């Protein structure tokens, strides 16, 4: 039976005190190693019934168009062997152009946009490709430390095809001057891995006179060698 590789040292340590919300929520005990059985090598294959074509365009869902910089965001969901992950659910959510989330907990005094709710979803195609039309989210302040501001980002939720591949993350934009002071972005220990959270501007994806194009590929854990030796 084939299992999935274990990404040692890739993810942020749960215990990252610079991000204050970890203090009362990060577990204290080290996790117990779980060998991968049938429940771990399978996972939800959530099909087309959860998604309509309109769900991938966050700019056409209301009476008017949202304010902000219109953008096309596309890329592929792959595993580490370069194999595309087809027919996989991708969900995104984000702040509006003013840096305000359409959520009752967000009390940042920036305007809500009646034409933007900030949620999108789509399925990857046979080549693992997703595509959204949205607006560029704004930066916003939060209370982690004095003058803490989140870099512009879009939240992503990925399923892949196995429980082990489930991933929730955030995508950032090139050259954001707020990276240096953001404990969430900097919680990824390897600087090269951190860079993989940043999309790139792509003029081939850009539609002239209409919207800038950005590309971001997402790489999920790939298959590893046999999990158990037979009869071991």
């Amino acid at each position: 039976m084939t299992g999935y590789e274990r990404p040692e040292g890739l993810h942020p340590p749960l215990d990252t005190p610079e991000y204050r919300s970890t203090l009362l929520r990060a577990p204290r005990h080290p996790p117990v190693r779980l060998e991968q059985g049938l429940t771990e090598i399978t996972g939800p294959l959530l099909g087309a019934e959860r998604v309509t074509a309109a769900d991938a365009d966050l700019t056409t869902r209301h009476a008017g168009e949202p304010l902000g910089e219109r953008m096309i965001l596309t890329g592929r969901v792959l595993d580490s062997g370069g194999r595309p992950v087809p027919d996989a659910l991708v969900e995104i959510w984000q702040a509006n152009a003013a840096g305000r989330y359409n959520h009752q907990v967000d009390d940042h005094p920036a305007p809500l946009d009646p034409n933007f709710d900030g949620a999108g979803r789509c399925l990857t195609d046979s080549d693992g490709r997703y595509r959204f039309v949205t607006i560029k989210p704004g930066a916003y302040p939060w209370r982690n430390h004095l003058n803490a501001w989140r870099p512009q980002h879009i939240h992503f939720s990925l399923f892949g095809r196995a429980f082990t591949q489930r991933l929730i993350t955030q995508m950032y934009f090139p050259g954001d001057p707020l990276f240096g002071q953001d404990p969430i972005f900097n919680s990824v220990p390897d600087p090269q891995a951190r860079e993989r959270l940043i999309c790139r501007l792509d003029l081939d994806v850009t539609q002239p006179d209409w919207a800038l194009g950005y590309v971001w590929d997402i790489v999920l854990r790939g298959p590893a060698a046999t999990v158990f030796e037979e009869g071991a």
Partner: protein
Amino acid sequence: MRGLTPSQTIGPFLAIGLPWPDGPEVVPAGTAGAITISGRVLDGTGDPVPDALVETWQAAPDGSFPHPDDPRGAGPAGFRAFGRSATDAAGQYVIITLRPGPLPWPGGGTEAPHLDVSVFARGLLHRVVTRIYLGDESEANAADPVLGTVDPARRDTLIAVPGEAGQFRFDIRLQDPQETVFFDV
């Protein structure tokens, strides 16, 4: 080999994009044989975590998965096997599902009925993974190869407490005291 994409926290605003109206219903409420698993997600002071997302994945009652990667073959389509519940202001989640079947363990032996669980929340930079076992399956639980790897003093944190009429209670404590056992999968 391509570099893997690292995890980031789900943050406090997951309710914008992730909850589904039918998320907690792996099967519709009222389905014959349905069980309800509910509980609270709690932080290190015992306060509720009102902005968590709890997801479950499990076998069907006959031990099959609706998935082609099961080397025994895919089970019948129609059973979603996946549940998703955001916590409410009291930190409460709920999953309505069917009792999973036991599974052959690749290393030999039989896994007791269980659900794999992912917990996401603000303050968690990647998900934590646990398992829900059912407290009325004590014989199967005693022989379970995964429970056998867990410190006996902490094993009870993985076992949902049966109540009346198919109800089970399973609290998730992110941090001591009585921290839930989490797995590195």
